[in-house]
């Protein structure tokens, strides 16, 4: 007698297939699971795909060289949709279903803030590129590591640059973000110390389609420099409207807002002279060259940082001799050991660790030394100016 499955049975079997595959795989190899939670859609959607590409390439390199502790690493990628509500559900999947040891790459500060409690409750390490100061002030018990310099460090540096650039009166226009107010306060503090007058700051809703009233208000104070603390969609509008309003002073903004793509999409006149500022990856480092090779283009800071996230995770597990969020938590600072041999790739580091030697990992974003709160201790910054629709590097300091 032959058994002919009914339609319903066939459907059930088909639905169960992906889960069966996963079980069989787990029993054979027991890979180490690492999650990436990056924005593939939404406001951060232009950064996420590159980040995942780099993370995947680093994992492939490590696996090709024999893995960590004899085990392969498996990368699971989820989309946070640049939205905290969806981000929490995506993180739930990574933690509860995929059972990852660590989550790398959260980008928007609101997403990181929402996901962080899930991570420390479940003893999963969270590596983030978000900038808001309040993130590392959460009661995270050491489960957050941030490679992005915080607002205090960034705003202080940009203010110093503005002082050196001979601006005299600076007005701020900030998109409503968790770090808008902190940013401006720190900027104003350093500007005052350099005898530059901070005129004030307007915090606006980035979702608006016009900023005429904000610009009128700003220009009424007669600034000769504007600090645009924005994201890409709103700065596009701001720059166009400033151009139309005939503003001819200096404009400073963050590199994540004025992306090279933005320069391609707006007329060159509109962005001419715009100075953009970004935490600089270590341009001379072989790790940076690797990220550039993977992307086939000049990497953004986040792609460089996620390279370091994945490398740090692999090295910490090797150093600890065990996988799991707790192992990474306990040993992540031990692989940036100042007394160890300097390495710029996870593979070199893993070899040394296997021989029982100490390593000092310096990645594509620079030295990976973290404060007890999980913030990066210091980093380099780069300044670019837009000229004829392209960026020209001004300085790295």
């Amino acid at each position, binding site marked *: 007698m032959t058994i002919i499955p009914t339609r319903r049975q066939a459907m059930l079997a088909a639905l169960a297939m992906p889960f069966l595959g996963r079980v069989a795989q787990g029993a054979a190899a027991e890979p180490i699971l690492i999650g990436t939670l990056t924005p593939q859609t939404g406001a951060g959607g232009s950064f996420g795909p590159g980040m995942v590409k780099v993370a995947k390439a680093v994992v492939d390199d490590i696996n090709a060289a024999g893995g960590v502790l004899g085990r392969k690493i498996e990368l699971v990628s*989820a*989309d946070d949709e640049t939205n905290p509500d969806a981000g929490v559900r995506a993180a739930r999947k990574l933690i509860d279903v995929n059972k990852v040891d660590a989550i790398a790459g959260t980008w928007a500060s609101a997403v990181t803030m929402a996901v962080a409690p899930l991570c420390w409750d479940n003893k999963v390490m969270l590596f983030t590129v978000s900038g808001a100061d309040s993130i590392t002030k959460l009661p995270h018990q050491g489960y957050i590591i941030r490679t992005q310099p915080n607002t205090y460090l960034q705003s202080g540096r940009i203010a110093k640059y503005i002082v050196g650039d001979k601006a005299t009166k600076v007005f701020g226009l900030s998109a409503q973000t968790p770090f808008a107010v902190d940013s401006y306060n720190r900027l104003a503090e350093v500007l005052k110390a350099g005898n530059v007058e901070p005129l004030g700051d307007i915090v606006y809703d980035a979702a608006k389609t016009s900023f005429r009233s904000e610009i009128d208000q700003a220009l009424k104070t007669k600034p000769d420099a504007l600090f645009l603390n924005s994201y890409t969609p709103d700065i596009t509008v701001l720059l166009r409207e400033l151009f139309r309003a005939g503003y001819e002073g200096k404009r400073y903004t963050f590199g994540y807002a004025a992306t090279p793509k933005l320069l391609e999409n707006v007329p060159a006149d509109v962005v001419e002279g715009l100075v953009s500022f970004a935490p600089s990856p270590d341009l001379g480092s072989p790790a940076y060259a690797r990220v550039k090779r993977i992307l086939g283009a000049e990497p953004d800071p986040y792609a460089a940082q996620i390279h370091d996230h994945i490398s740090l995770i692999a090295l910490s597990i090797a150093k600890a001799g065990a996988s799991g969020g707790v192992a990474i938590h306990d040993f992540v600072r031990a692989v940036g050991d100042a007394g160890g041999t300097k390495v710029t790739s996870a593979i070199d580091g893993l070899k040394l660790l296997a021989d029982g030697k100490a390593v000092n990992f310096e990645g594509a974003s620079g030295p990976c030394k973290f404060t007890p709160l999980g913030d990066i201790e210091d980093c380099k910054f780069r300044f670019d100016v837009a000229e004829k629709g392209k960026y020209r590097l001004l300085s790295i300091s």
Partner: protein
Amino acid sequence: MASYLLAMAVFAGFYALMALGLNVIWGLAGMINLGLVGFFAIGAYTAALLSVKLHVPMLVGWGAAAIAGSVAGALLAVVTARLKGDYLAIVTLGFSEIVRLTASNEIWLTGGTDGISAIPGPFRGALSPLGFNLVFAGLIWGVVAVTALALGRLSASPFGRVLRAIREDEMVAAVAGKPVLAFKVRAFALGAGVLGFAGALYAHYNGYVAPDAFQPLITIYVVLALTAGGTGTMRGAMLGAVLVIALTEGTRFLDDVLPGLAPVQIAALREALIGTALIVILTWRPQGLVAERTRVLQLEAL
């Protein structure tokens, strides 16, 4: 996996509760409310602030959240008394954006875009993450069941009949001697109270609220849930909510089925699939999965 499924059941519960609240306002009384996430936010912030800043017991906070939602709902209903259809939709959408912008800007109260973190959850510290999800899934679906039963009774009562009469033709209801505005205000207050209560539970479940969490997207999802499930019916509201979560979250597993695609392609495919599925459902069953059954006077029988 169990913990994940429970967490998704909790989210489906939030959506179901919101769909039930919306059902009173829109499904029964016919007032299009695209500002429901605003009431949800008011409830969430009320409960979060009471428990974090004033250390009020959680249950009291939940009650206060429902009342805050109700009061806001009643006020909005009075303000929009003369608006109908698209105009009401626009004003209510504006209302929810006002709530979100207020939460972003009144930093002294709401913490601005930093939000409010470390909101306690019922038994969170004492339970494992799995246990907490289990307790919360039981709690939320218990609340959903009680609310659905109560609202179901209400819908079958004379009060519900008047609301449906107003929905079908306000003029006729008024001519029949029903105080239309009073009924509308009561329906709005009741629905908004349910939305506020849902917000309170959401705040205590997530442990974190921020203005970014209350984007109009949630409104759209809940409206879709109710439309797909069937407006006017409590079972439809619940079924639709489960369906929307199953669609948005189920598609996250696409990468297991289609390993060859890059995450950005998966993300695009997800959005396309969710959209297509909803279009298919609404084309196939425009009245929703569970159609409303109302008693119609049988003229032939007379």
